[in-house]
């Protein structure tokens, strides 16, 4: 006999925990940390204060367990300084699946109302212990709950509740629970996850104490946070019948015109009228049935639109209505005022009251279906704007990458907002070369969605496919170069394939934005690589010449039985003249002199110089020159001002062969601008050193 039963959402996810990323002890411990960290970060985005997150994972009953390998019971504690949770919502937020504050139309890490609760549920079913939550929204009290999830009923069961005084007005949330897991297997992924989170959240301080007591610290590199997203209305392209049905039930507006404008994203008066006319939701008066007063009203209103209709007298209008064959005013206007813009016509007719739209509350089910269908078909809607999104921005993206990868080169790009099925999205891409990026057989790909690092199911991800499909040789990229590509997709609805939020599906709109974004940064990388190769060649030849020429000089002097060595610096100068670029050099001590010298200009690796705060490796260059350049001298290269920081001489038997100087970009302030102005050079002197040095 067949039996039927109903299960609760909690029960459903309990039975199908695989789909939420709780497949095995290794994966589960990773997912638990991840879900809690993401909730913590979301909470601080809300309060708009740079997050400070403390994570502690410790072994429970460590005495009993001899080996550190394999599955064990751990206690996980995550503390944040975020918004906190109003006391009355705490039990449901953590004890009820599909309960949350992030169902709104704005970007957040969380979406389903599932993640944190699933982590707790997993802990509960593996250890049979309650979760402890302490939270405050910054009021005079903090609330502490001990609860378990009633899985069958999808309800929190509160075991204990305490209220503490909050003298310091602490704000934030602490979640602590026990779970079974395999930390040592999961460790690489967890650390990678934290590192990538630090990269994409460069304004966060994250500390992690692992079960062995090791402390991992990720320090913020900036206090700037991306502007918070604004909540938005649904876009007509993205709604379904159910959404409309809910809206007509609650709307307070009486005309479709208002309905369209007030409940949908980026629908103004003009667009609304146009759409309703297109969709057949306007009724138009019959010109034949117009009364004399109506015509007077029409002609008076036309005067308001004088620019379009000129002076229109009543007799003429009346004549038209008599003779016309049109049965609707829209048609009528079209035939008799061909030249007038349709928008104007619509506004005119609305103003006169010859056009009417329905009361949305009276829409019939078939009309609702038609409305949704027409919304998808109409191409006059403005695309959704991106105020509901919170991309990281090029500056923060660069900060994050520099902080975690210390690359030699970096290019970032933020694409313009775009949409798929009515959902706005923005793609951010970056490419980084060298530094701490490991050399592998393939390009490293960092994937992020709404600032969440995606670490699993890489092969199925759209970004990975895009990268694999590109012809990298065209960009001078060999796959074994130390290159990392970063793709960040943010959207109110990231097209994840699963609730585990691990990879992004192949949406053509998203895919093409990713492709274009990567191409853009790849082109910049190509420029860098080409230039670097060229400079490398130049420096190599300078090195070779400065190795051999002195020897030729020395042996020739012996052979010729001369007492003094010939002056070879002059000859090396010729090499710089051939290979070098001219830079304007300004000696520090002699104010007012600018000299053009030739130098080979090289980029500097992030690891080579102690990069000061507010600077990036891009702000440093290395130059090879033959002049008497000094510390604090300034040079201008490609209209960027640099100051000489450190100098190294290459000398040969009292002769200067060349100088290597590391220069730092001058970030100008009032004072230095007064001190030093780069003028057009007044002395054209290619080389300072042209005579013998004594």
């Amino acid at each position, binding site marked *: 006999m067949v039996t039927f039963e109903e299960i609760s959402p909690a029960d459903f996810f309990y039975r199908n925990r695989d789909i939420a990323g709780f497949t095995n002890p290794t994966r589960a411990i990773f997912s638990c940390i991840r879900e809690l960290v993401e909730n913590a970060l979301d909470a601080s985005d809300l309060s708009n204060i740079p997050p400070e997150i403390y994570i502690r994972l410790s072994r429970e009953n460590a005495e009993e367990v001899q080996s550190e390998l394999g599955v064990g019971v751990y206690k996980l504690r995550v503390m944040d300084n975020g918004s906190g949770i109003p006391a009355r919502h705490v039990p449901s937020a953590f004890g009820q699946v599909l309960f949350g504050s992030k169902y709104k139309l704005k970007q957040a890490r969380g979406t389903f109302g599932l993640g944190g609760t699933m982590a707790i549920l997993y802990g509960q079913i593996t250890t049979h212990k309650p979760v402890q939550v302490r939270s405050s929204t910054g009021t005079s009290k903090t609330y502490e709950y001990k609860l378990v999830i009633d899985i069958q009923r999808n309800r929190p069961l509160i075991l204990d509740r305490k209220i503490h005084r909050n003298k310091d007005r602490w704000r934030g949330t602490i979640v602590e629970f026990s779970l079974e897991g395999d930390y040592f297997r999961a460790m690489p992924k967890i650390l990678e996850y934290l590192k990538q989170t630090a990269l994409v959240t460069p304004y966060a301080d994250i500390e992690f104490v692992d079960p062995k007591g090791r402390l991992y610290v990720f320090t913020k590199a900036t206090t700037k946070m991306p502007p918070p997203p604004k909540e938005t209305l649904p876009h007509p392209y993205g709604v379904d019948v159910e959404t409309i049905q809910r809206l007509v039930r609650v709307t307070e507006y009486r005309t479709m015109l208002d309905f369209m404008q007030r409940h949908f994203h980026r629908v103004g008066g003009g667009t609304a009228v146009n759409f309703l006319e297109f969709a057949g939701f306007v009724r138009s008066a019959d010109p034949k049935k117009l009364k004399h007063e109506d015509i007077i009203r029409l002609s008076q209103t036309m005067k308001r639109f004088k620019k379009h209709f000129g002076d229109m007298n009543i007799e003429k209008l009346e004549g038209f209505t008599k003779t016309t064959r049109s049965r609707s005013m829209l048609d009528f206007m079209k035939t008799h005022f061909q030249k007038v813009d349709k928008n104007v016509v619509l506004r005119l007719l609305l103003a006169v009251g010859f056009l009417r739209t329905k009361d949305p509350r009276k829409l019939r089910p078939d009309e609702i279906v038609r409305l949704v269908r027409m919304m998808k078909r109409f191409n006059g809607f403005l695309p959704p704007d991106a105020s509901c999104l919170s991309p990281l921005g090029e500056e923060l993206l660069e900060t994050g990458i520099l902080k975690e990868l210390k690359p030699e080169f970096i290019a970032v790009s933020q694409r313009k907002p775009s949409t798929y099925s009515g959902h706005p999205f923005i793609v951010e891409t970056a490419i980084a070369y060298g530094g701490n990026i490991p050399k592998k057989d393939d390009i490293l790909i960092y994937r992020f969605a709404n600032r969440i690092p995606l670490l699993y199911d890489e092969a199925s991800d759209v970004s990975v496919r895009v990268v694999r499909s590109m012809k990298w040789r065209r960009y001078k990229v060999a796959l074994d170069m130390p290159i990392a590509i970063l793709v960040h997709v943010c959207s109110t609805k990231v097209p994840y394939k699963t609730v585990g939020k691990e990879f992004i599906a192949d949406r053509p709109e998203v895919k093409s934005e990713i492709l274009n974004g990567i191409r853009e940064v790849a082109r910049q990388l190509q420029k860098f690589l080409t230039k670097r190769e060229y400079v490398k060649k130049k420096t190599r*030849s300078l090195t*070779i*010449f400065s190795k*051999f*020429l002195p*020897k*030729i*000089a020395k*042996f*020739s*002097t*012996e*052979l*010729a*039985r*001369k007492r003094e060595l*010939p*002056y*070879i610096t*002059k*000859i090396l100068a*010729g090499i710089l003249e051939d290979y070098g670029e001219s830079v304007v050099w300004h000696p520090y001590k002699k104010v007012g002199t600018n000299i053009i010298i030739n130098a080979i200009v090289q980029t500097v690796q992030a690891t080579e110089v102690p990069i000061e705060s507010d600077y990036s490796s891009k702000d440093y260059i290395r130059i090879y020159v033959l002049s008497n350049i000094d510390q604090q001298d300034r040079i201008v290269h490609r209209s960027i001002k640099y100051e000489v920081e450190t100098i190294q001489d290459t000398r040969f038997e009292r002769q200067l062969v060349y100088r290597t100087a590391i220069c730092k970009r001058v970030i100008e302030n009032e004072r230095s601008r007064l001190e030093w102005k780069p003028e057009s050079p007044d002395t054209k002197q290619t080389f300072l050193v042209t005579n013998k040095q004594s």
Partner: protein
Amino acid sequence: MKNSKAEISAKERRREVLKNLRRFGGKLYKQMEKGEFPQIKMPSRSTENIFYSPELRQYILGNKTQRRSSRNIRHIRPFTQLVWAGYFARELTKNRKTSTLRDVYYSAQAYDMSFKDQSESNSIITDLETVTGFSREDFKVFPEERSAVFGDLTIEYTVPGYEGKQLNLMSHPDGVMIGPALTSAEFVRTKADKVIAIEKGGLFTRFVEERVHRKFNALLVLTAGQAPRATRHFIHRLNKELGLPVFIFTDGDPWGMHIAMVIISGSANAAHLRELTTPDAKWSGVWATDIVDYKLPSDPLTEVDIKRLHELEKDPRYEGELWRRETKKFLNIKKKAEQEAFSRYGLTYIVDKYLPTKLKDTN
């Protein structure tokens, strides 16, 4: 006799070499003083520029020159090596020290001038010869292989510590090594009226034992296979300075024949050098004809031998009647014989019967 020869004496030659090297360095120095990258021009040694000169009866270089500039990133290393080699040669010459090619290769390392391998350093030495027109022996750089001479010739050393000392080359029955000291020695007197050059050590010893030098009034030179350049130069001097005719005895095969030819007409590799050839020297045997005439025990020619003979047929040095005839004969009989083959007629046959006949025939 000491001052009557056309050749310059060893001392003068040394002075010449030093002067030449100084000029070489001076040229480079001047260019650098002018702020230019030093460069040199020298005759090209590429195969298209090597010609056989019937007048000189040796290979010479044509008019093509080759420019080596230190401006060129690919040239600067060999260029520096060349200048170093010049410097090294000067040190050797100045200090009257001798050295070997191997030695050059290692010495470079002391100047942080390392060569990739021996052949790279050898070719730099050849460059130096080309640039200066002197042979490496003039720079006191000698090859490893050594050959010997025996007979009534008195020489006077010029090497440090032996200046003025005289030696008769009959004083040691194994012969005297043709090394740096002998090469730079002056010839004082001789009673001999001919030179007999012998390819192999065994036969050389036999000739000394059989007193060939007395019986034929000859100086005996052991070439020890292909004659080293020092030996070729030595034979050249015996012929030029003392006016002695030269007779060469080799194995009866294409390789032996060519040993004789290189002594007579030189090699393409040394086209940039003079005074290494003895155009009037005679190849006296063993000929292909001898193999037939003397019914010598022989081996069949190998494929390599035959290939070599075909090459020699096209060689401009083999234009002469004797050479043509013998090459053809070898190809004809397809046989070869070693000098030792005469032993079948008894140990002294070669000296008593063969040698007198051949000397007469080829004179």
